């Protein structure tokens, strides 16, 4: 991952957990993708979901927005002709790790392929006006904060990043702020997300697997589990 995450190792436990580093803040540069209601089909078109792993999805992030002509070619490859001015094509944003978006970003399908593609492209944090719930949950499961701020603050940040792409941005999950240049945005992080990221507990498998007897008790108490 690019950027300068402050990370302390969580316990790499033996009961199904993996190393989920604490994500207190993400520092780096930004890439603006403007527009409300950017859906998961735009983030990663469905034809790129015909895979058995998430590897290599980074190059297909926003694919159909990045080229005028796209689609499968006769040999099973992809046509990618006439690049557009999409920010993901702009070399000035090539090293960016903070995606700056508008309202209802990530609406639509539950495909984790969407945040997987963004993360593999290089995104470590997303700052926006609002996010679709399943998308935000999928980001959390990958340790990517989805931080919200009001539309004016987002527009100002997008303007700044467009004008000066090498502006350093710090997304502070713990303090719920986004700082750049001489500005500090009062941001918001969902409390559970904040707690999970800061504590390094965003990979929940070990936590949820630590009380199997209690789970079995709940299961047994339900009237429908006898078959």
């Amino acid at each position: 991952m690019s950027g300068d995450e402050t990370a302390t190792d969580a316990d790499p436990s033996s009961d199904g957990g993996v190393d989920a580093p604490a994500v207190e803040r993400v520092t780096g540069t930004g890439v603006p993708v403007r527009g409300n209601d950017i859906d998961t089909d735009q983030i990663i078109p469905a034809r790129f979901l015909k895979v058995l792993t998430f590897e290599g999805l980074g190059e297909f992030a926003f694919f159909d927005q990045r080229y005028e002509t796209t689609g499968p070619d006769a040999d099973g490859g992809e046509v990618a002709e006439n690049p557009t001015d999409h920010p993901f094509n702009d070399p000035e944003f090539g090293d960016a790790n903070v995606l700056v978006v508008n309202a209802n970003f990530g609406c639509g399908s539950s495909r984790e392929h969407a945040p997987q593609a963004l993360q593999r492209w290089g995104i470590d944090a997303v700052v926006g006006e609002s996010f679709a719930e399943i998308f935000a949950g999928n980001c959390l499961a990958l340790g990517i904060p989805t931080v919200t701020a009001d539309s004016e603050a987002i527009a100002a940040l997008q303007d700044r990043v467009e004008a000066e792409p090498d502006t350093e941005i710090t997304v502070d999950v713990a303090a719920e702020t986004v700082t750049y240049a001489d500005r500090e945005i009062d941001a918001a992080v969902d409390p559970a997300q904040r707690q999970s990221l800061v504590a390094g507990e965003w990979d929940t498998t070990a936590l949820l697997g630590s009380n199997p007897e209690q789970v079995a008790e709940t299961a047994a108490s339900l009237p429908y589990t006898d078959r």
Partner: protein
Amino acid sequence: MSEGTLYDAVWDRHRVRRLPSGQDQLFVGLHLIHEVTSPQAFGMLEERDLEIAYPERTHATVDHIVPTDDRERPYDDDAAESMMAKLEENVADAGVTFDHPDTGRQGIVHVIGPEQGLTEPGMTVVCGDSHTATHGAFGALAFGIGTSQIRDVFATGTVAMEKQAVRRIEVTGELGDGVTAKDLILTIIGELGTDGGVGYVYEYGGPAVESLSMPGRMTVCNMSIEGGARAGYVNPDETTYEWLRETDAFEDSPETFAERKRYWESIRSGDDATYDDVVTIDADAIEPTVTWGTTPAQTAGVSEPVPAPEALPPEDRAVAERAQAHMGVESGEPMAGFPVDVAFLGSCTNARLPDLRAAAEIVAGREVHDDVRGLVVPGSQRVKAAAEREGLDETFREAGFEWREAGCSMCLGMNDDQLEGDEVCASSSNRNFVGRQGSADGRTILMSPEMVAAAAVTGEVTDVRELDATPEVAR
């Protein structure tokens, strides 16, 4: 916060404990899986040397990538074949029931669960698929999850979730002739917006919802996510129980059914339930509804003018402008009369038997317009077989529709069923996003199955009520 609702009751019954994050650990009663979002989760389990904790509560089907024409193995599409083969291997290793096409039970995941009685009121249902809310039609708490959460459910039988607020959507009056559950949910999304439901679970109720059949309720709940709500439900009632009584799960077990019904009744929202929000929708005012843009909230009655972007709230204008440019629609004009190239009858929203019956009534004795290709893709192998017993396949074929095998098909174009170029599709599916149906320039107009049938025969968006036979099938 809400109190005394079905959501509260089901949440409390399934809550294992409070997690340090403030989320709750919820037991999962039914975990449905399919070939697109599960292989990576199986891979993660293997990497971590874990096994499926509750294989008996896990149920698999294949729907997104299956061809709907030639199903001989290996599939022509290598990627589809490898996904199918991987699913076969994974479920065999894990001991999970799989509704393989050879069983005659294969179909879209949100069609087969309710069809077999796997989905019950008062149950938690999850699937790596955003349309999982469909199962809420039975009074289940059903929501879509991502692949990392699938891993959690595999490994532990539980998921970490935050409790949401509950919005009651009270639908008064009754839907008129030719107006369906699809028109109702498109209207609701149009009113509340694509993100109006973020943070909420929707409880649909009121006379116009209670009078819907189970397939109609499934259509409504299915599209909750298009309005931003991760889950939506209808309180179970006699309509629900009648459906369940005839499923595989209960048809031979009247005692289990009677016992279970006591639980189902117990979790209904009480008369004194409190909601975080209540919205009232007047069913009498709804006409056949279609989308004019590229989000499911960009809707209009078929005869209403498409709004001018500058007449919309400021935050919606840019999206509307882009949408109208993509679609090639003119503001001020109604969608009625807009030419279509493709008619797609299918998807987890509208491919159940009553949907096909209602469309067939429109199609009977008519022909698909010369400029239109029509495709009927039943929601499951059982729906297909039932439709064939009634001769619906003949009706569709005689009119010039293709009659296909069950799957997701052109709803999202992961198999060969795709739009080409900037074709316009009259579609009974759920998403009109740019590129959704397989072509980056393709254009999707969402509507009811009846309206798809009407567009297929006239070659343009058409108010189904203006054709002489309006279906009288209860929806």
